[in-house]
């Protein structure tokens, strides 16, 4: 912990030096259990006559790493406007009959392109309130671009492949990130003010935490995502927000 404090101090000092009026929000998201049951989807193979397409084996990705990396953290606050940082166009590829990445975080107003890298057709669509669209069938090498003007959670599917699922989290402001595999996140250059830090997990739900960001000091907001294993009705007693210090 002292090490992380040291490093945050270091990061804070750097931020302070570069951007005197803003500081970072950082924290650790703790997930202790596997949350999402996942099926192994065979790769979308090239179905050539006579040559069998090998089934893909389960990736040996750490389940908790996966869960942590599928948590999105963003800020809510009236005073937050558009960031002056340039918006990098987001991309959600279709590869091996999966959306890759299957979780994209974009600020409202940004666009996502859906290029198809599979040798087969895909038909990407969404019926979410934030944005509903149907891109129609398109094959390898083609792409479609969709703009997401409203903040919200957009679930993306493929008509042809019911197993394919992806999520686009449209945040109301540019301060939104995916937590890394270790559970750490950093929301950089947050102007001073009172905010709500929101942590979202697809099955875990949404967790909120109010913080006050001052220009002199970095803020911290840690989350504990107490997710019950799917299919087990048991409620975790530790469910709820876990506020750091």
């Amino acid at each position, binding site marked *: 912990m002292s090490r992380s404090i040291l490093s945050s101090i270091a990061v804070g000092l750097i931020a302070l030096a570069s951007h005197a009026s803003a500081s970072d929000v950082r924290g650790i998201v703790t997930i202790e259990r596997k949350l999402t049951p996942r099926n192994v*989807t065979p790769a979308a193979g090239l179905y050539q006559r006579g040559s069998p397409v090998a089934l893909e084996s389960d990736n040996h990705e750490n389940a908790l790493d996966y869960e942590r990396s599928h948590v999105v953290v963003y800020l809510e606050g009236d005073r937050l406007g558009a960031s002056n940082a340039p918006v990098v166009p987001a991309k959600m590829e279709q590869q091996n009959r999966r959306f890759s990445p299957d979780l994209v975080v974009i600020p409202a107003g940004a666009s996502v392109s859906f290029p198809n890298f599979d*040798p*087969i*057709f895909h038909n990407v669509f969404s019926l979410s309130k934030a944005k509903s669209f149907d891109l129609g069938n398109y094959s390898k090498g083609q792409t479609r671009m969709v703009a997401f003007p409203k903040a919200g959670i957009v679930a993306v599917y493929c008509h042809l492949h*019911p197993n394919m699922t992806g999520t686009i989290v449209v945040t109301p402001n540019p301060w939104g990130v995916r937590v890394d595999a270790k559970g750490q996140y950093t929301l950089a250059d947050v102007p001073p003010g009172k905010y709500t830090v929101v942590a979202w997990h697809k099955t875990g739900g949404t967790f909120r935490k109010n913080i006050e960001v001052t220009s002199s000091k970095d803020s911290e907001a840690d989350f504990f995502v107490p997710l019950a294993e799917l299919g087990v009705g048991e409620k975790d007693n530790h469910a709820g927000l876990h506020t750091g210090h």
Partner: protein
Amino acid sequence: MRFATRAFLWSFLPFAALLAGSFWTVRTAALSAVREALRTSVRDNQVTLVREREQSESRNTRILRVAAENPALKAGLQLLATERSARETARRTVEDQLSEICDTMGFDFLAVSGASGEPLAGVIRGQEGFAAMDLKPVPPAKGFFATQGHIFQVTSVTIAQGDERVGTLAVGERFDLAGVAMPAVLLHGGSVVAITTPGANKSETEAALHKCAPSAECEVRIGGETYMSMPLENSAAQGAEDGFTLRSLRSLDAAAAPAQLVLRRVFLSAGLASLAVAIALGAFSSRSIVQPLADVVARLRESGKTGVLPVFAKGKRGVREISELTDSFNHAAASIREGQDQLVRAYVEFVSSLASALDARDPYTAGHSLRVSEYSCAIARAMNVEGQEHELIRVGALLHDIGKIGISDAVLQKQERLTEEEEALIRQHPVIGKKILECVHGFEAYLPVVELHHENWDGSGYPRGLKGEETPRTARIVKVADAYDAMTSDRPYRRGMRHEQAISILEKYAGTQFDVAAVQAFLTLGDIIQRPAAGDDPVHNSLQHLAAALRMETASPVAPEESRA
């Protein structure tokens, strides 16, 4: 052929034939019953299996209907229908979908065809994963489908969009004939693709099944065995010329073999046992039929040897025919005995008349023959001579001087001493006697006594001059008796000697003229030998004696045998 054999064969053979025939019939009936029962059980078994197969197929169909409602697949088909430009990619997309579905459902083969039956896409499970399959028409509802070196058992359902039929979804599982729960054969266009029936040859099976109707139960003979075949699955019946036919093929013979073996063993052992019983019974019955007869025959055979006719006891035998036979034999035997008695009487009368003729010629020798016979018999008894030889002595002695018939009375009755010529004539009498009796049938045995009763021990006798034991004992004994009687008899020219004197003369010439043993035997007789008193009527006496003696003696051989019978 012996009567026993005949009786045995007649009693045994029809019995055996009847037995064998009935056993054969029963055995055949039992075998066919077993066969029929087995056929029924095989049929039931097959029917059950067929039903099970049908049930599993209908389950498959239900699962398949769910799969056919897969919206993604429908979307894929839609894609195929609309994407004319990127048809290949669309097909791959569908193939990819199919492989996913197929993997989830655990089939080996999944294919879709269009509304008009044209093949659109299909995947086949390989060792590493799914591969696209060659596009060819899949059987419309169910059946076998051969592609890429494998045979699949296929079930198809319609994919519908609303009321519109957009295509057909066919699933298949790799067909392994060994997985069919009974011996079966898979035919493709009439030729055998695979067969799991043990012992059935491919080409023979092909030829045999050719006659079977595609959708009917059928019994065929392959390699000498009877097989039963039921159609399990028949796509040929649904119109396709080169369709597959799956038939069960099970050997009835193999199924019936254990039961038949048991039956055969049972019948064989029962048959052999009853044949053995039949043989024993036949032998026993034929024996019991023949035995009384055989006894009769045996006794007759024995009587043939001894010359004594048996008398069969009456009423002892249980068999009436045999009793009648023995009774009639007894009658016949009685008649024969009667005849024999008459013969003996005739013989006795003949000998009597001979003797009396002889005696009538010479009153001085009256009774001589009878006496010599008596003496000889006494000597013989003393020497322990019995039976046949004794009889020879007795009768031979009676006849010993028969040859004197051929000598003229002048010589025979001459009062004076005989001249040498007369002596020579007298000496002819044994030879003459022999010649006379030679002609009489049945008197041959007495010839030695008649011919040789004048031979001497030292060889100085006549007519042959035989020495010692060259002369038969019968003749030697008669010689002693003859000499004694001659010496003790009165002659015209001399009185008879006294007993003692005669004895002394016998003793004196024993070893020269007489046989020592015979003389000694005579000496032991002592007072038994008594010359009858003179003055009796010799002729009458001798005849009476002779007749009495003969009657008594000739009757004696019959009497003991009668008592024996």
